[in-house]
């Protein structure tokens, strides 16, 4: 009888230790998850800022200025480009 009790005690101790380790492990993983989520949020923010930066560089007045002044581009005369009758007019971009 007492041997059986000893075995139960042992099982209880092992289980308690396992609980402690797994709890610890879970918290570590959770923290890691938190860190990754934070990183994902920060990357999102950075993506937004880069998009903003891109659209600031790509504003039409700036493009036109560079095209005309730096690259010496001119708009072709309507007479200068032949119009090809396409099947359907293409809308938008």
């Amino acid at each position, binding site marked *: 009888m007492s041997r059986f009790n000893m075995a139960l005690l042992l099982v209880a101790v092992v289980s308690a230790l396992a609980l402690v380790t797994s709890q610890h492990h879970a918290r570590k993983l959770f*923290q890691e998850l938190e860190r990754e989520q934070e990183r994902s949020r920060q990357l999102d923010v950075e993506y937004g800022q880069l998009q903003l930066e891109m659209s600031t560089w790509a504003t039409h007045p700036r493009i036109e200025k560079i095209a005309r002044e730096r690259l010496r581009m001119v708009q072709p005369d309507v007479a200068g480009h032949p*119009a090809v009758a396409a099947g359907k007019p293409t*809308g938008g971009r």
Partner: protein
Amino acid sequence: MGISRRPQRGHRFTESPVLELALQGWRSRMVGLALMAALLALVLRAFYLQVINNDFLQEKGDSRYRRDIEVSASRGKIVDRNGDMLAVSTPMKSIWAIPADARAMNGEQKRQLAALLGMGVRELDGKIAADKNFVYVRRQVSPEIGGRIAALKLPGIHQEQEYRRFYPAADMTAHVVGFTGVDDKGLEGVELAFEKSLLGHPGNRAVIRDRRGNIVEDVGAMRPPQDGKDIRLALDAKIQYLASSQLKATVEAHQAKAGGVIVIDARNGEILALANWPTYNPNNREKLSGAQLRNRAITDTYEPGSVMKPFIAALALEQGKVSVNTPINTAPGRMTIGTATISDAHPHGVLTVAEIIQKSSNIGTAKIALGFTPRDMWELFDKLGFGQEPNLGFPGEVGGRMRPWKNWRPIEQATMAYGQGISVSLIQMARAYTVFATDGELLPLSLLRVDDDAAVHGSRIFSPQTVRELRLMLEMAAQPGGTAPQARVAGYRVGGKTGTAYKVEGGVYARKYVASFVGIAPISDPRLVIAVMIDEPSVGGYFGGDVAGPAFSRIAAGALRTLGVPLDAPLQVAASETARGAL
């Protein structure tokens, strides 16, 4: 053997009678009872703590480890039809202080903080000298600076996350997009009109933090944050740029007070561009004047002038009162109705109905209009949307002034036919012209991109036949012999009507004008309706054809090219005359 045991004397120790104390039974019962009572007390205490007082203790426990944290949500973006950014939120930090705690900073710490915030130490001292529990030291600081301030670990200095709105297209789209206040709420334009969709709803979560402040566990329910929805406008950033830059050039060339341009897609009523001048930069709103903020195309009305005439001609054709070639005598260029006299800018003789539109004769139009009952004319205007707000959802929309037909006098009916005595907004006028660009249907306008053209249903006002005839008249007006030959576009057939209207100032007509042009391109298969309005041009003419016509031509040329609309006219305009528009 006779060894006999000695009789035992005495007793074993344990059997000593001395030890046989006669304990009274109650004493042991007493001890047992006391122990039981103590046990009961413990059980009751446990019950009290675990069951009755549980909530209080739980709360105490939670307050030591559990934290409710807010998860911020961002405001939706506003993008143009092709996804180009027009308004984006990006996170910023607000630096705030608990003044009583912040006063514990030493001189060196104050100096560092002030330097990072770009303010003087004295200014900082002033802020934290306040007798409050909370002061903003500086709002909307970049996240990078915020991080450096946090690293200083200053007493009483805290941060909170907030957002700042950026508008990459700046002054070009200012009136359409509008702007938000410092608390990220829409104050003007689309930002205000679509506030409900754009607004993000922050979520929250309950967590357990350990001693170092790390989150170790989620507890309880969490509400995920809901980011605001993105709004995709019908606006085309390229056409918008074209329209706003041409408007600016035109207003400056004619030293006008103000102006507006609207470009509408004739297939589905999308607003492709809407620009006003003067405008402002929504990214930097210091020193803004009311004039800059006004979205004139929508919130201001003006008397449109001759731009109104085609509707009168169309109604007369529709009712069968006249045909395109019916001659009408407009000589001698003056006409008296009741006590008032109306006149033409240039006297003409006998004109056909088509020529009345081409040459913009007030007399001819008035004569046609006097053939209607006031009620017919009122109903026409009403069906075209005059006198009613356009219901775009924009803040500050106006309906314009249109008096009830019952007390119209004949002179009023005559002047209204050429657009004096009735007031409209530019957007109402642009919308009304969609009847000539479709086969006679008035389209509802849309600020948002329309994905399915077939889902757009207009209301029929004229028959397709009437509209076809009207389009040819409008084309004549934009050709040599018409009022706006400068409105021509190389390679395309275009048509439209000029307007040169007197302005009303203090109830009387002043010698100030509003020059406008509303046109359609291309005539063979209309794709665009473009309305240009210039308020008080003072240099280089004041006629609609001279002022607004060239702007229409350049905007139309660029927009048609941007949209890839096939040419529908032989290239007969000399190269020197071609529009030198924007890219």
